[in-house]
């Protein structure tokens, strides 16, 4: 009924695929308001995650996310590395050693991930960062989890909200990260970290199909 370690591995594998496929797009998004490396960083990080998953297959969803956290932390670099690292680590902690994740636990883990991001990067909603994808995502996830308890619906709701959240960064004026140096000139561009976040959450939903 819930999500098992197979789902977690599929999620991470699909995330890696998404980063490879969208590598150039994420680089292009990072070009006008950043330093043209986000796609490269994320692709490098998730390729390393694939390697680690193959080397030592994890036994639980939590273990898979912890391994992902450590790998992203050590391979991504930049702002995104520690931020995603913290997010996955907090989610892993929230999952504990359960091998069957139900909707409520799932929503709590997503919430923990978002809270980790915020704790680490000190960004608020509206600052034009990945937080603007994660915040609506966890709200939608919590609402879905309160419904019929279908984990797939929770993940779908999170993915859709994250995608809308990424789009919502277009008109924002950046106040955190590299884009903030541009002031007004950051307006009209989509935040690359918000887009990679939406891709990761979409992969989570697809992995549960």
């Amino acid at each position, binding site marked *: 009924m819930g999500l098992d370690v197979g789902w977690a591995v599929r999620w991470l594998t699909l995330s890696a695929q998404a980063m490879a496929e969208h590598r150039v797009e994420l680089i292009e998004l990072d070009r006008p308001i950043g330093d043209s490396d986000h796609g490269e*960083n994320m692709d490098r990080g998730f390729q390393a995650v694939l390697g680690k998953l193959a080397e030592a297959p994890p036994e639980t969803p939590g273990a898979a996310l912890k391994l992902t956290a450590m790998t992203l932390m050590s391979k991504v670099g930049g*702002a995104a590395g520690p931020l995603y*690292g913290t997010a996955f680590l907090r989610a892993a902690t929230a999952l504990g050693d359960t091998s069957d994740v139900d909707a409520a636990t799932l929503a709590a883990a997503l919430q923990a991930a978002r809270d980790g991001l915020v704790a680490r990067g000190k960004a608020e909603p509206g600052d034009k960062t990945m937080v603007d994808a994660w915040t609506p995502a966890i709200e939608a996830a919590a609402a879905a989890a309160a419904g019929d308890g279908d984990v797939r619906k929770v993940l779908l709701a999170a993915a859709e909200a994250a995608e809308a959240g990424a789009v919502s960064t277009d008109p924002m004026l950046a106040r955190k990260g590299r884009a*903030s*140096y541009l002031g007004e000139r950051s307006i009209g561009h989509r935040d690359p970290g918000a887009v990679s976040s939406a891709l990761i959450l979409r992969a989570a939903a697809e992995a549960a199909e």
Partner: protein
Amino acid sequence: MKKLINDPKAVVDESVEGFGLAHADLVTVFPDPKYIVRKDAPVAGKVGLVSGGGSGHEPLHGGYVGKGMLDAAVPGAVFTSPTPDQILPATLAVNSGAGVVHIVKNYTGDVLNFETAAELAQAEGVDVRTVLVNDDVAVEDSLYTAGRRGVGGTVLVEKIAGAAAERGDNLEAVAAIGDRVNQNVRSMGVALTACTVPHAGVPSFELEENEIEIGIGIHGEPGRHRIPMENADGITDRLLDPVVGDLGLGSGDNVLLFVNGMGGTPQSELYIVYRRAAQKLAEKGVTVARSLVGNYITSLEMQGCSITVLRLDDELTALWDAPVHTPALRWGV
């Protein structure tokens, strides 16, 4: 994009390897996780100095590893801060027991990665202090941004804190000297052209033939204002005035004037900028007691320059003059 590279993914690996071969008398290069350590580290009783950041700013930071400056440098991917799994072993490798100072340029990525590494090092019993460099006056509303960036001042912090460590200052004192340099140094830069990150393959921004970008950082990120091309004196004034204003410099002050090339600008042009800056400072009664002109903190092949001014006192001057022996900065030895 035409570059002297083999594979965009191998740029940092191969470049750092070549660097290690060329300077094997001064440094040891560890390939994976990648960091560069002073040949004789850890130096007994000496505070260790570690800096690092994205690659593409050479000679920063690897070029400053050696006697009288850094004990280790940690290069990330191009324009991408390094990761804790590099910073931690570098920190451990240079700790002689006297503790380690991290010199960190104020970018979200650098700050977060060094923060994590410092926590991990502390957990292993190493005393770590962090000196944050944020000298870029181009970032105005630091309350509503990630804050001022660390740019040209970084070189001066590394040299002067390095000299303090070399003379035997303790951990608190070395960090305090680093902070003092940071408080007294300001910079601002201009780009005439953009640069191309190898893995991106296209320039980081577009500039028309008659446009320049004022207030750029060192990561190929666009700056704050885009203005029509001006002559060297006009550009120099646009960079120097906010720096002088922010430092509140006036008659009787002694300074170090540092005109830095972004990588693709001929030295002759840097001296044209230096000339104007030196003349303007002299007009204000400010004495240029020390100077540095050249490519010391770059953005790949970007054309442009930055001006950095450090207010000097006797101690900072003596520490600046102290012997240094690194691949990119050497005197007195």
